């Protein structure tokens, strides 16, 4: 078996393995992430208001909505 084929087989095995990723942080291990202090924006109106005080004074806009918060366990 050529080196290329060996690498191909290894890559295929890794890809197949990736399809069945097991969560390395189990649901019962997410108590810290579920703590309210880990939330990005507990007060939704306030968070948006503060962001946009800045956007009214700055040339920059957007991108500040954090993609995620909490832990997916509540």
């Amino acid at each position, binding site marked *: 078996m050529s080196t290329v084929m060996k690498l191909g087989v290894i890559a295929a095995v890794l890809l197949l393995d990736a399809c069945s990723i097991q969560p390395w942080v189990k649901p019962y291990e997410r108590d810290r*992430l579920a703590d309210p202090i*880990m939330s990005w924006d507990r*007060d939704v109106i306030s*968070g948006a208001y503060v*962001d946009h005080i800045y956007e009214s004074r700055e*040339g920059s*806009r957007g991108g500040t909505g*954090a993609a995620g918060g909490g832990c997916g366990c509540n």
Partner: protein
Amino acid sequence: MAAVATEATAVFVMSKRFRIIRLGLVATFLLARPGGSAVLPDDRADIFYSDYKGGGMDITGESVLVRKKFSENFSVEANYFIDKVSGASIDVLSQASVIKDERKQKNISLDYIHDKTQYNFSYTDSAERDYTSNTLHFSLSQDMFGDLTTITLGFSDSRDKVGENDGSAFVPRVVWLGHAESRTYQAGVSQIVTKSLITGVTLEVISDEGYLANPYRSVRYLDLGGGGLGYGLASQVYPNTHTSTAVEGRAKYYLPYRAAASVSYRYFSDTWGVRGNTIELGYTQPISNLWILEGRVRHYNQNHATFYSDLFPFAGSQNFVARDQDLAAQTNNTIGFKATYAFLPDGWKIFKRGTASLDVSHIQFKYDDFRNIKDYNDTPAGGNYAPGAEPLYSFGATVYQIYLSMFF
């Protein structure tokens, strides 16, 4: 006439500000949840009050929000926001007097969950005397990889109508100047890295087209033979297209002694030549189960837009001209504190619990090429500063927020 122009100018300033607020509110609602998108958030009712003072402006905001689940898969949220502005920013005050006005915004948002996917639809209507705006928004979030990863995609379409008050503060006469359309594309990934660390990346592209200039603010140009100040004033002219890209990365870490530390960085660029950097650090410390104390510091800097100048060499010196504070080179720094108190831990009647918050922030703004022509000018009373030699402008602003939430 000068007072009329000023009154209208500040109104427009408010319009622009809250046009963005609306989008941000949508984004926040959308993106604050993906980690928990398999379950809808708690039912809640919020009351919010804010007061911003700084740079000659006093803006108060009042808002109510109600969120209610109608099943395990479907919920509705309604929000009403009203804000009142008095005073005006420096570039407005340098031309005329102060103003008063208000803006009203209504938003309704629907969430639907199917398996590990959450769909969100929302509609926002914002109205004030010389500016109206309507926005439709759609997004979906998908949990994957054992709910360690959440991907969010969003799209908003906004239609605005831009006007100018050609009357007075007491007898307004609005002349509608044109329309603007805005489309926002959002993509985000949230990733649980360890039992104590969560990270996220957000990409947001906004594309505007139409009447984007501020019809009230003026540029100034050198005119030594002019009205005694050494400069003349002319209308701003903006390009009629604008596309911006913002990318933000953030992380939050749970410390060993029950506290949290966070960091975020955002890079911004747009087709008007503005490049911005934002970095923010936060710290959260609970005290028993009753209090949560938070502190944050933020730093921001940007260069100026390609068609911005504090003083143009002569009238009509280039196609596009602007002298808007937002587009000037600037730096600002913020320090803020927030205290949240949890009450009714055992519930009361229909309520499960409640929280009350007080948030105080101070922001110091400093401009690198925006000069204070209100207090300093080429007159004996103004210090005899030649045009373009006036001191650079800076100011501080303080923001108070009071927040009451009841969960049921």
